[in-house]
């Protein structure tokens, strides 16, 4: 569980807060399992071309191969066009997971930089930047996304940009809050007292200490982005067939749900599993990184 203020002797090697956090994370079996699953999924997605038994778009003798239930040759069955769903799921993983990761990177990157600037400078700069954020948040993001997707063709790059650039505001607010509370801590004043320039204070002192929140938010956000892409693709405005994405695969399987349950079931379960794992990972990260428990004095 938590750490206690330690006072080890000279022969004990020092442990950085990072090392302490890693140990705590490792002790959380659920989070570690989630991490392994996520790792496996990403690995599989990267190796999809090597692992997929069939070409995901290959259409053979449609009538003979369509709607086949899961079997040894087709572990996830086949869809209405006789395409192997396992291979499609593997390629769909590439789409969903990469969009999740990349969109999150953009959102976190922009949000952190924005929030850090607002938090560090405070005053009028902070006010102005945060009012802008308020305006953006008030904007109906969904319609904005629809509009942008209508303007540009929805391929992976476009979706990544759209999702990323409409989701950074929450992170900005979070980071700004962290920075504001860190600024009041004495060690920041100490850095100013020795004459450290502002930019260095932000980079060397503020951001590493705010990193914990960033990581937790990022983990949650990847799950959220994967879900968002799936939702958009499900509605037909995200990744469009024949490019497989878990979202559009579920959509395709909707109609045949009673007849060929496997078409929607496997991609849907993979989506649920992935998002669940990211949430568990986020929980595990938060418990492991919580700075308050780094040196709580119990007695």
């Amino acid at each position: 569980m938590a750490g206690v203020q330690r006072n080890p002797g000279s022969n004990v090697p020092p442990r950085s807060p990072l090392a302490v956090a890693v140990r705590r994370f490792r002790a959380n079996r659920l989070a570690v399992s989630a991490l392994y699953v996520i790792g496996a999924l990403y690995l599989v997605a990267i190796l999809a071309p090597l692992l997929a038994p069939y070409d995901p778009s290959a259409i053979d003798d449609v009538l003979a191969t369509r709607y086949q239930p899961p079997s040894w040759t087709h572990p996830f069955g086949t869809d209405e066009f006789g395409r192997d769903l396992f291979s499609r799921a593997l390629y769909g993983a590439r789409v969903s997971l990469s969009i999740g990761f990349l969109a999150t990177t953009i959102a976190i990157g922009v949000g952190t930089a924005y929030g850090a600037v607002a938090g560090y400078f405070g005053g009028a700069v902070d006010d102005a930047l945060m009012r802008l954020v308020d305006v953006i948040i008030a904007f109906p993001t969904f319609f904005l996304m629809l509009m942008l997707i209508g303007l540009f063709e929805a391929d992976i790059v476009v979706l990544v940009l759209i999702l990323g650039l409409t989701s950074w505001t929450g992170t900005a607010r979070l980071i700004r809050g962290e920075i504001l509370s860190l600024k009041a801590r004495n060690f920041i004043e100490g850095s100013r007292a020795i004459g450290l320039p502002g930019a260095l204070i932000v980079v060397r002192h503020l951001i590493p200490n705010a990193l914990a929140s960033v990581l937790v938010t990022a983990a949650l956000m990847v799950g959220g982005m994967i879900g968002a892409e799936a939702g958009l693709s499900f509605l037909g405005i995200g990744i469009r067939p024949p490019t497989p994405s878990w979202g559009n695969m579920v959509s395709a399987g909707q109609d045949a749900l009673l007849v060929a349950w496997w078409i929607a079931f496997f991609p849907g379960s993979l989506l649920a599993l992935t998002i669940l794992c990211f949430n568990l990972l986020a929980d595990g990260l938060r418990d492991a990184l919580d700075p308050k428990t780094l040196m709580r004095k119990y007695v």
Partner: protein
Amino acid sequence: MLLSVQALSTHFALDDGLLKAVDDVSFEVEAWETVALVGESGCGKTIAALSIINLVPPPGRIVDGRVLFKGQDLARATHEALRRVRGRSIGFVFQEPGAALNPVYTVGGQIQEVALTHLGLSRHDATRLAVRLIGDVGIAEPERRARMYPFELSGGMRQRAAIAMAVSAEPELLIADEPTTALDVTVQAEIVDLLRHLQDTRRMAILLITHDLGVVAEMARRILVMYTGRIVETAPAGALFRAPRHPYTQGLLGSVLRLGAGRDAPLGGIPGSVPDLLDLPLGCTFHPRCPIADRSCEAAFPPLRPMAERRACACYKVHAN
């Protein structure tokens, strides 16, 4: 005997090891007496206090011993029995002024709640009681203040309100955990006077947890000194200040700076620092810092040996003469 703590041990099972926050602690509190539990960081006094009312935060657990309050063992009591004792028979004051006060309810309302829960008063009577109590604890304009929220009051007033809440059900024992530490010294003096006044008028016993020896000198009749989870010395207040026996107590009292002692008076202090609680030295945990320790102190922690004048001391080098 109002409270009798026997061989209490409260341990925390942490990732890094077993933390024995309280280890084999025994003491007693008689009715209407003030006993002080004194010690510095890591001594276990707060956990000991929380153990009495069985409110130790997880992963802490009481692993051994008994806490007999009027004959009932609180360490093994049912949840329901504990609930009846807490607040009604034992009041608790926390360190942060008004930490017990919920910021979204008025001060009067919260004191009322205690009265309603434990005394079964009507709402009207409970309100009147709350206002009277607020006045009793020395807050001016009690009717007006009762309707205020905690953030509208100063630290000193919040602490007074918290004390009012703690004594509202007329408990027989008040446990005060560092009640004055976070307050200015002028306010501190007022709180000490208030506690003494309440004790006199209500015939309460007070278990005072603190590291401030000045406050202890003003309030306590008996003193228990703790170090790394164990009691190292007990004595009546006068005797302890006049002639401390345990080397730690001597070091501690020697470190207290007296006003008016002059610029060149010795600063005292104990060398080194409190050991890592998860890696305590073998034998007497104080021996690495002790001026009179030798090899024999490394064997086992010295037992608390009773001495004359109702004192006790846990040190191999101190003889019960």
